[in-house]
């Protein structure tokens, strides 16, 4: 055996940066959470309410509704949705070995959109009244899930999933979904069109405990499963063959990645509509800051995605209060220029 010569003095280890980032990002998430609970259009004060609780007093109705029924479910929704979008972005990018991949390119988003539009336009005609307000999220989730599983089946032959086939079929499926959505939109009335538009812009305003209780566990499950994908996705960065050589169960990694993204994004989109940009920007920022190691990237993406979505939500409800700006507008307006600025600054330093 060769002598283990090490001159680690000059060695920089990005894993340490990434671990330090865990701490910073947890801090950021805590701050964002408090901001999300404390800031809102109404004058209800989180601190006054906590003070009351500490003194054993009853909260008045307005405090209870605003804090417990509006802001708290919204906080939880923001955390799980933001984390899910960012983690799904990181996982998709790792799976497709492309920093531009997001759940949109494999048709999850178009599937969810089609489901949502069907619920909005055809919902009143279907004998599914028992679903009530759950109809739209249920349809969106089913749409996302069906499209992803369909793609997976199309791209898998003899137990092997071809990522390239999946990408191409995803584009075709997205086009088909877009066309069917167009068909629905054509037969929609004016009010339904408005609903479709607003749904596409995304919002956490519709967050309720009922939705949190249904979608939350699905998203959390998907997130936890995603956390196990780090090493596999690192291996896939070397290519599928090399990943197999270093002991990665490649097919299992792909299957888990695809199913967890379908479940997580499906549920997230179902309860919050179309929120763009988080899935691309968050993993990219973190890759620039702490490197592409997916074991770190996925955890940090969850934390940063949740924080950013909460902050965007605070902005969305304050900036034109008492009205609200759809959050998809906020994430894009704030996210896009920052993203471009980062790209310009890092141009030439780091290849995508």
């Amino acid at each position: 055996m060769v002598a283990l010569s090490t001159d680690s003095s000059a060695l920089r280890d990005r894993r340490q940066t990434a671990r330090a980032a865990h701490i910073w990002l947890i801090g950021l998430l805590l701050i964002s959470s408090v901001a999300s609970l404390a800031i809102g259009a109404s004058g209800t004060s989180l601190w006054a309410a906590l003070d009351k609780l500490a003194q054993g007093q009853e909260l008045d109705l307005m405090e209870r509704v605003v804090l417990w029924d509006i802001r708290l479910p919204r906080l939880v929704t923001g955390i799980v949705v933001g984390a899910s979008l960012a983690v799904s972005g990181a996982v998709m990018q790792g799976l497709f070995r492309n920093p531009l991949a997001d759940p949109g390119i494999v048709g999850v988003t178009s599937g969810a959109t089609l489901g949502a539009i069907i619920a909005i336009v055809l919902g009143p005609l279907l004998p599914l009244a028992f679903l009530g307000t759950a109809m739209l999220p249920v349809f969106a989730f089913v749409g996302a899930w069906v499209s992803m599983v369909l793609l997976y089946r199309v791209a898998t032959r003899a137990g092997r999933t071809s990522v390239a086939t999946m990408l191409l079929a995803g584009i075709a499926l997205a086009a088909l979904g877009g066309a069917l959505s167009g068909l629905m939109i054509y037969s929609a009335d004016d009010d339904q069109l408005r609903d479709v538009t607003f749904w596409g812009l995304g919002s956490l305003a519709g967050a309720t405990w009922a939705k949190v209780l249904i979608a939350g566990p699905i998203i959390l499950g998907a997130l936890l499963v995603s956390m196990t994908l780090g090493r596999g996705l690192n291996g896939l960065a070397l290519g599928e063959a090399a990943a197999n050589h270093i002991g990665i169960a490649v097919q299992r990694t792909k299957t888990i990645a695809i199913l967890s993204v379908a479940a997580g994004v499906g549920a997230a989109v179902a309860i919050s509509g179309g929120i763009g940009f988080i899935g691309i920007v968050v993993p990219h920022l973190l890759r620039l800051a702490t490197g592409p190691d997916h074991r770190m990237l996925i955890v940090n993406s969850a934390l940063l995605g949740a924080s950013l979505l909460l902050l965007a939500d605070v902005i969305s409800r304050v900036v034109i209060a008492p009205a609200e700006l759809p959050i998809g507008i906020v994430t894009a307006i704030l996210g896009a220029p920052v993203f471009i600025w980062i790209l310009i600054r890092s141009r030439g330093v780091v290849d995508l």
Partner: protein
Amino acid sequence: MLAFEDISVRYGRKTVLKAASATLQSGQVIAIVGPNGSGKTTLLRAISGDTRYDGTVALNGQDLSVLKPWQIAEERAVLPQISTLAFPFQVIEIVRLGAQASTTGHQDVIAQAALARVGLSGYANRFYQELSGGEQQRVQLARVLCQVWQPVVNGRPRWLLMDEPVSSLDIGHQLEVMQIARDFADQGGGVLAVMHDLNLTAGIADRVLLVHAGQIIADGTVDSVLTDDRLSNAYGCPIRTRSVPANGRWFLLPGTNAA
């Protein structure tokens, strides 16, 4: 011991490898040679698990088809001919990707040692994409060495499978990589390499498998396998081989009818 028996590979209807069989002993550097399209890389890909095949491959007595990827990875590493990499990983991060679960305790130390072994210790924090092709190839070799750093573990030899490991290297680094392979075998591991350069092969290989038209047509020492007639037939051109007068070592002169 690495044994394969009746390995056949078909791409569509075309059979590119027909019933290849051999039993390879560790402690040796074994070269697979043959002209372009002969099936030599296909043979290595089948043994590496990159392609579907009929027949059996057994590593240290265990059929690979019943082992999990991580079990196989503990006992053999593969250096591909061409490596691609997504995302801006740093050199040391790539080398560390080779580390296995059983590489306990010293993973980082081994990764750095592997990098030093290929002469790139100063490159740890460089971005892989910024390196030259030859440097990238050596980083991949360091990753592979990191995976099977100890040639023998608990009496079980490990294997290095390499597909044209020196294809993008200059002559100095070619010799360096060959020396790494030699050392690995001398310490009890097994090396199986697809080789393009017959002179380099002759300088290092303990055993040569000559592949032609999808079949292993000769198997043995350099002198017994690489004969003028066989090479001329396989490569489709007149080939003359000679011995170095001083030490009797085999070499091939390029060009026809060389003196």
